[in-house]
């Protein structure tokens, strides 16, 4: 069997004396969609942010496509941000609060990484960026500034920006939590379409029904540990652990 695209091994993270992650282990295979759910403060976002080293893990391994992330090969020395850049470029990240760059147009937001990080010539970068914008149904907004878009549109641009990296793995950090309820659907639809294309995704979400429908596997985290993991439908409709049951019963309402 092929080794998984992403492996998280014994991941720990502490802030001072506060231990947020207490040894997380799981993996994501190529083409697999994995959703991480759990109550606020369970460490699920921190876990996701450790994958591309926006947070530096206190201990443990992140392995992407056979390569250890954030640590110099053959030593234990952590990489600097400059050294990390090529590894981060292989992972697309979508943030809860979008974080589009307000001084750049929508098209530039999507194409700047192609031009400056991937070294794609300007014309070609614009074409690819345009394709990505079409994919999220925002081709008509290419020349507007992000500040003029709705939250749902901004998040779709952010998804296009992540896609433009041609990433091996897409990371979603609660992509719909900051959106007005009527805008959630358009973003989930886009994520659904990406899932249907067979992209590899790791998704932290509060949308339990969405996780059930889209994910192959769901991981339930609480208190900095993985409490339970299993096939999405099974875990959500028939959780085994008491803590999972309690959490899901609160959400159902």
């Amino acid at each position: 069997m092929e080794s998984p695209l992403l492996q998280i091994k014994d991941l720990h993270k502490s802030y001072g004396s506060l231990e947020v992650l207490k040894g997380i282990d799981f993996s994501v295979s190529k083409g697999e969609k994995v959703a991480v759910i759990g109550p606020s403060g369970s460490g699920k976002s921190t876990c996701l942010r450790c994958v591309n080293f926006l947070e530096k893990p206190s201990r443990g391994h992140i392995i992407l496509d056979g390569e250890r992330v954030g640590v110099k090969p053959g030593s234990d020395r952590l990489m600097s941000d400059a050294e990390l850049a090529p590894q981060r470029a292989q992972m697309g990240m979508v943030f809860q609060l979008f974080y589009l760059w307000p001084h750049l147009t929508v098209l530039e937001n999507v194409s700047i990484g192609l031009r400056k990080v991937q070294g794609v010539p300007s014309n070609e970068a614009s074409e690819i960026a345009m394709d990505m914008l079409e994919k999220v149904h925002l081709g008509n907004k290419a020349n507007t500034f992000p500040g003029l878009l709705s939250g749902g549109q901004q998040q779709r641009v952010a998804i296009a920006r992540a896609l433009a990296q041609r990433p091996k793995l897409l990371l979603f950090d609660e992509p719909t939590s900051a959106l007005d309820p009527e805008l959630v659907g358009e973003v989930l639809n886009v994520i659904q379409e990406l899932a249907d294309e067979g992209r590899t995704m790791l998704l932290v979400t509060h949308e339990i029904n969405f996780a059930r429908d889209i994910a192959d596997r769901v991981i339930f985290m609480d208190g900095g540990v993985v409490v339970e993991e299993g096939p999405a439908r099974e875990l959500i409709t028939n959780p085994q652990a008491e803590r999972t049951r309690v959490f899901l019963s609160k959400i159902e309402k």
Partner: protein
Amino acid sequence: MLDKIQHILIALLGGISVTISVTLGALIIAVLLGLLLGVVRSFTKWKLLRFTIDVYVELFRNIPALAILFIIYFGLGSVGLRLGSVTAAILGLGLIGGAVLCDVFRAGFSALHSGQREAAIAIGMTPYQTIRLILAPQAIRIALPPLGNYAIQLLKDTSIASAIAAPEIMFFARTLVTSTFETTLIYICAAGIYLLLSLPLFRAIQSIEKRFGVGR
């Protein structure tokens, strides 16, 4: 009366080019130095470097400009480094401006949400690219209004260069006073020239702000 004013204005005109040169020269030094110090102060991990910049900023912000000009013009002169009065004024005011603008740019950087940086490094930008392409353009936009205020202030402050005999507007005014004793009229004319210079400068700054404020 009009005759007299005309005579005075013509005499003062000789100072305008020096006033403008000192303003522009000092402004260029101040912006480049301030941006450099502001970026380094905001992003360096080296404590000693941060401390050094803080000392620089506090020194130049808390010593009167006149004292600094005297030190540069007379002090350096006495140890053999003799600068022209215009050069000394540009250098002195530029160094002071660098300290002022260091803080202005630093405030611009610290006003940005940390997510702006995170999104940039997440797509694989290096720290240098992140600052140059994402953070600095936004921080500079935020810094534009205080930068404009500084430029106006600087134009007016060039008048102290007259104290080291830089032949700018006030220098001509004072010289003229000693030969004609038309004190009030001469200084009012000088004030009018400053006003005529600073109003267009203010307008120019406003239009820059308007133009680059787009998208925020």
